[in-house]
């Protein structure tokens, strides 16, 4: 485990660097938007990566509810945190792109709005984990994750219909996609996934260690001989 990490870290850094190079220099310039559009190589793959981690959180939560395996809970929390970071990237790059292109910071566009709601749901998930006391945290958090998964289709559906009644510019491009753009997207996505899983792994290990330390502390407290008077 210890040996593999530095190697993977270097590989990830290399992949991220390569993706940056591809996005900034190799990919063709967009006819209408100019070079500004290049942020799409960070915006869209972050969105895909975010979904990967949120699905992981959902899966791990289900496993926890059925099996009560503490490792599943550690996976859930690590995945939620990494997912939330990528979600934040999507929400920040969206306006950064919208401003020069459409002149407005925020648009209640279907995708961006739904992503905002997703961000709120997972932020509340992490707040619940922070504020809940004692051993119930994994169970409560797992139940909330299930609720989140049930809510998301309803969120997408309701906001989509809401937006078709009030049309707004769409942040995400449309029309046909140049195959060379797709290639860069895929490279970016691969780089982000590697980076995401690396951080996830670190966070997962940290969580496992934290629990071992806590268990050791409570065992020590139990076995201590109390002082009489």
């Amino acid at each position, binding site marked *: 485990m210890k040996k593999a990490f530095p190697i993977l870290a270097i590989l990830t850094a290399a992949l991220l660097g390569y993706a940056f190079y591809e996005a900034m220099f190799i990919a063709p310039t967009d006819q209408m938007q100019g070079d500004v559009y290049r942020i799409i190589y960070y915006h869209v793959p972050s969105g895909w990566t975010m979904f990967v981690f949120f699905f992981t959180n959902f899966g791990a939560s289900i496993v926890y509810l059925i099996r009560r395996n503490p490792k599943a809970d550690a996976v859930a929390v690590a995945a939620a945190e990494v997912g939330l970071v990528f979600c934040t990237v999507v929400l920040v790059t969206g306006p950064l792109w919208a401003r020069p292109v459409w002149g407005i910071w925020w648009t209640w566009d279907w995708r961006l709005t739904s992503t905002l709601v997703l961000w709120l749901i997972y932020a509340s998930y992490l707040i619940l984990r922070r504020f809940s006391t004692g051993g119930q945290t994994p169970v409560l958090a797992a139940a909330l994750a299930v609720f989140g998964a049930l809510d998301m289709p309803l969120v997408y559906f309701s906001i989509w219909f809401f937006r078709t009644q009030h049309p707004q510019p769409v942040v995400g491009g449309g029309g046909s996609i140049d195959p060379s753009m797709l290639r860069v997207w895929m490279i970016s996505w691969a780089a982000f996934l590697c980076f995401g899983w690396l951080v996830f792994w670190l966070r997962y290990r940290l969580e496992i260690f934290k629990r071992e330390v806590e268990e050791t502390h409570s065992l020590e407290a*139990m076995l201590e*001989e*109390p002082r*009489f*008077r």
Partner: protein
Amino acid sequence: MAHPSLLYDELSAMENLRYFGRLYGIEGNHRCADAIRKVHLDPSLARPVGQYSQGMRQRMSLARALLHDPGILLLDEPFSNVDACSASEMVNLLGTIRDAGKTLFLVTHQAALLDGIADEFVLMGAGKIVSRTRERQIIEGAPR
């Protein structure tokens, strides 16, 4: 039966037991009234339980625990915050419950109250059983 009374302060004795009886599938009033009488309280008292004295409330908690006729009772500090007179009344009550065929486990800091009534005293220290005797023992320096 535990430290907090596990009763609704705003309801009367009968109302409390009628509700809890429902949870155990007990219909009708007479079993509730019986349980209240067993702990030497008055079933017809309409006063909310929150206005009872501490001793009365402890006995009411006992009534709630007895309602569904359990074989074993677990009691945690039943004499806490109770004056000496009510405490000895409580002890006699527990004796009659034991005589009626129920098993009672009590945890208490006031074991002296149970001299001559309890069948067995188990002394604990640091999470381990230190002694099990018919008569109450005092060990120097023991925490409990």
